[in-house]
């Protein structure tokens, strides 16, 4: 993120007046890349959570984080289309609403599985749930 921001700023500065005002303007010019980068960082944090955590509930929360990163991408691209002139472009919003619905359904089913699992095995640690692992 830092390198991208610095690179953007360094590209912007020679075109404008080399003043603090120009520097601040270049820093404040937010394009779609910033939102995509933020979305990617959220995605990477979510993947790290899914891969490393031992508590299955935290893994579910990390999956919600990944889905939110996708939502942020959809909304940013829709805004990009809108700012490009297609003012009535809202398909990304609709996709985001469907992703929220699917995430809610997934959370309900997953948590039902967690409750059933805890009733049978008395644990939520994923490395103790290894009956099907050879």
């Amino acid at each position: 993120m830092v390198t991208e921001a610095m690179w953007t700023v360094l590209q912007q500065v020679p075109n404008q007046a080399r003043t603090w005002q120009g520097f601040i303007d270049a820093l404040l010019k937010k394009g779609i890349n910033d939102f995509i980068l933020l979305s990617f960082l959220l995605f990477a944090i979510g993947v790290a959570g899914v891969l490393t955590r031992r508590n299955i509930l935290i893994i579910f929360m990390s999956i919600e984080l990944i889905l939110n990163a996708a939502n942020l991408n959809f909304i940013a691209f829709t805004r990009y289309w809108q700012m490009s002139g297609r003012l009535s472009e809202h398909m990304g919003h609709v996709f985001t609403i469907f992703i929220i619905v699917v995430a809610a359904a997934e959370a309900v089913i997953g948590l039902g599985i967690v409750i059933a699992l805890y009733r049978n095995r008395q644990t939520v640690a994923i490395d103790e749930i290894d009956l099907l692992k050879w």
Partner: protein
Amino acid sequence: MELAGTEAVFFYILALFTLVMAIALVTAPTAVRGALYLMATLIGVAGLFLLLHAEFVAGAQILIYVGGVVVLFIFVIMLVNIRAEINEPFRTYTRQRRLAAVVVIVMVLGVWYFGIQQDPFHLVRQGPVVALIPPPGAPPPPVEEPTLGGRISEDTQEVGSVLYTKAALPFEIASVLLLVAIVGSVVLARTRRQEETFD
């Protein structure tokens, strides 16, 4: 044009808040704290949606995620493991931490290489540069016709019309999916005694 600078400042604040809360989520010592950090992350993402003029989606995010899904998470945490976590401290991470670090680093480097060095958006960049939040001094974006409900409800109206015309079939499928989820969670979460009683 003062607003553009303010919006960019809000972007930085919300992005930092969201990232810090997400990192706190994946490093949270207990699941209850994780749920609260998840709530903060979702609120930050909803603020970013507001910044991108997606008011309806931001409201839906707050209502469904923060009001529904996170509360469900907290319910399940209370049902499942709150006592065990307090009595014997839980080992937080699995043993595959090193593998996970390698995967995440490869992913970051891959995005850095293919996304920034190879520049897949060069076709977009050749077109007119579009800043999502207009910089100070830029010409204002094309202004919509002011309506009776104002701009906020206009976004909601547009989303609704798209949802019920172009995306009508997925909408119905989503309702069936929710029904299946309700029935499936009831079936999954009942006890053995209930199963024997009703089967």
